[in-house]
C-alpha cells in the first residue's frame, strides 16, 4: 500500500506541474482531473474513503466540468493559445518560482526535522463522519449553507448580461442613425 501511495503522490505532483505550465486551457483542465484522481487515491489509502469519493464527485465531476463549460462558452480558439505562449516565453516566471521554491525547501526541512508520526491507516467510515458533522460541527454546516446561497446569488448576479434600458425616443433616433 505504501508503494501505491508514493506512486499516487508522484503522479499528483507531476500532473499539477503540467497544469500550471500548459498553454491550452482544456489540456490543463484534463491534467487537473488526473491530479485530483491521484489525490483521491491518496485519501483512499490513508483511510478516508468518504473524502476520496467526494473528491472525485465534486472536484473532478462538478468543479472541473464547470470550468470546461465556461471555457466552451468563451470560445477562445487559437489566438488565446498563441498569447499564452507569448506570456510564458518571457523570463518573468523565474524569480517568483525561485523564491517560493526556497520557501518550500525551508518548510520541507522543518517538517522532516520533526519526529515521524505514522498514519494509523484505519478507514473512518462515512457514518462516523456524518455523525460528527451534524453534532459537533452543526454550526459549520449551517454557515456553509449560507455561503453556498451567497455563491449562487453572486454568480447569478455577476454572470447575467446587463440589459440596456433605452427610452423609446432614443431607440428611434438610434435606429435612424443606423
Amino acid at each position, binding site marked *: *500500500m*505504501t508503494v501505491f*501511495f508514493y506512486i499516487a*503522490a508522484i503522479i*499528483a*505532483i507531476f500532473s*499539477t506541474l503540467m*497544469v*500550471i505550465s500548459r498553454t491550452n*486551457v482544456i489540456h*490543463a483542465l484534463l491534467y*487537473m482531473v488526473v*491530479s*485530483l484522481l491521484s*489525490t483521491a487515491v491518496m*485519501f483512499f*489509502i*490513508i*483511510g*478516508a474513503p468518504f*473524502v476520496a469519493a*467526494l473528491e472525485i464527485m*465534486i*472536484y473532478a465531476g*462538478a*468543479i472541473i466540468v*464547470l*470550468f470546461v463549460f*465556461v471555457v466552451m462558452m*468563451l470560445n*477562445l480558439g487559437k489566438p488565446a493559445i498563441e498569447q*499564452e505562449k507569448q*506570456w510564458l516565453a518571457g523570463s518573468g*516566471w523565474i524569480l*517568483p518560482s525561485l523564491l*517560493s*521554491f526556497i520557501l*518550500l525547501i525551508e*518548510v*520541507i526541512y522543518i*517538517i*522532516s526535522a520533526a519526529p515521524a*508520526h*505514522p*498514519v*494509523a491507516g*484505519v478507514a*473512518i467510515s462515512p457514518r*462516523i*463522519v456524518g455523525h460528527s*458533522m451534524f453534532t*459537533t460541527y452543526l454550526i*459549520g454546516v449551517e454557515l456553509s449553507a449560507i*455561503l*453556498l446561497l451567497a*455563491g449562487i446569488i*453572486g454568480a447569478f*448576479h*455577476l*454572470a447575467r448580461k446587463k440589459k440596456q434600458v433605452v427610452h423609446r425616443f432614443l431607440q428611434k433616433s438610434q435606429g435612424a442613425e443606423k
Partner: protein
Amino acid sequence: MISLNTGLIIAGILFSVGFIGVMIRRNMIFMLLSIEIMMNAAGLAFVFAGSRWGAPDGQIMFIFILTMAAAEVAVGLALAMQLYQKFKTLDTDAASNMRG
C-alpha cells in the same frame, strides 16, 4: 510506512506549485485553477492530520473546504465571463485600471 510528515510535505509541494501558478500566469482561468490546487493541498493536509489520530475532524474540514471552493469557483467564473465580455480578453491586467 506512511507518516504524517510525508503527507504534509506532499501538501506543501502541491500548495507551492499552486502558488507559483497564481504568480506566473496572467490568464484568469489559470489563476482560478491554481487557487483550486492550493485549496486542494490545504484539504490534503487536513485529511492527513485527521487520519494521524483516527479522527473524523480532518475529513469534515475537507468537506467545508470543498464547499468553499465550489462557491468561490462559481463567483470567480462569473467574474471571468464578465471580464471577457467587457475587454474581450482573459488578461487580468486589462482590468487593472479603475473606471474600466
